[in-house]
C-alpha cells in the first residue's frame, strides 16, 4: 500500500465548490531513464486517477511519464449531498489503490 495524503473539507454547504488535494507515494518511473549500468529502467507509472462522489464519476485524470513522482492532483467538485468520495489510482504492474473520504453537506 502506497502512502496517500488527501486534503479535503469534512463539511460543506450545499452548492459550495470544494477543493480536494490528493498525493500518493509512487516513483512514476518514466521508462526513458537508464540505470547506473545504462540499461533502461522499465516504466512504472500511475496511468489513471478517478474520483467518484456517491458512485458518480466527478473527475478523472490520465497520467503519462511526464507527471512528477508522488503524483499530486488538486481538483474540485460541487457539494450536492452528504456521502463518500472514492479516490482510485491505477497503474502499471497491476497497481491499484482506493481511498475513501466522507463529506457531510449541510443546507
Amino acid at each position: 500500500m502506497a502512502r496517500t495524503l488527501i486534503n479535503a473539507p469534512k463539511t460543506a454547504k450545499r452548492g459550495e465548490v470544494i477543493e480536494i488535494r490528493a498525493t500518493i507515494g509512487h516513483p512514476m518511473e518514466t521508462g526513458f531513464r537508464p540505470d547506473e549500468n545504462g540499461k533502461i529502467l522499465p516504466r512504472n507509472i500511475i496511468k489513471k486517477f478517478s474520483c467518484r462522489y456517491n458512485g458518480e464519476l466527478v473527475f478523472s485524470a490520465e497520467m503519462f511519464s511526464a507527471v512528477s513522482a508522488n503524483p499530486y492532483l488538486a481538483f474540485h467538485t460541487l457539494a450536492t449531498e452528504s456521502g463518500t468520495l472514492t479516490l482510485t489510482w491505477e497503474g502499471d504492474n497491476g497497481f491499484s489503490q482506493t481511498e475513501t473520504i466522507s463529506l457531510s453537506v449541510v443546507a
Partner: protein
Amino acid sequence: MTMNPTPALLTRRRLVLASTSLTALTLMQPALANTDELAQAVSAYAAGKKVTEGKVKLEIAELVDNGNVVPITVSVSSPMTAANHVKAIAVFNEKNPQRETVKFDLGPRYGKSEVSTRIRLATTQKLVAVAHMSDGTFWSHTVEVIVTIAACIEGED
C-alpha cells in the same frame, strides 16, 4: 589494383563539408519534428477541429529551477453549468520524450474549471493546454518555459 585519383586533401575537405552539413541537418530536424509533433498531438486531441487560442490559462513558472517537479494550474473561463461546461483539459509538451503530459476529464458537477498537478520537463520548451468545451469547441493556451535543471537526468534519486 587502381589508385584513387582524388588527392587526400580534397577527400578530407569534402568529408569535413559533408559532416558539417550533416550535423546542421541533424540539429535542425528534431526541432522541426518536435514542433510538428506538438501540433499533431493537439490536433489529434481535438479530432481535427479548430483549436482557438483563448479562454484557457496555463499557469506555470516562466523560469523553472527544477524540471522534476513543476507545478501547473490550468483554468478555463466557463460558467460550469450543465449546459455550458468544460468536458476535458489536456496538456501537451514540445520536447519531452512523449508529447502527452496529462489529461483531465471534468463534468458539470466539477463546479470550478480549475485543476492543478505537478509535471516533469526535460528541457526549455513550449507547453500547450487545450480545453474541450461541452459545445464541442476547443480552446488553448501556449506557454514557453525555461528549464535550468532538467528532469530525466541520469541517476536522479
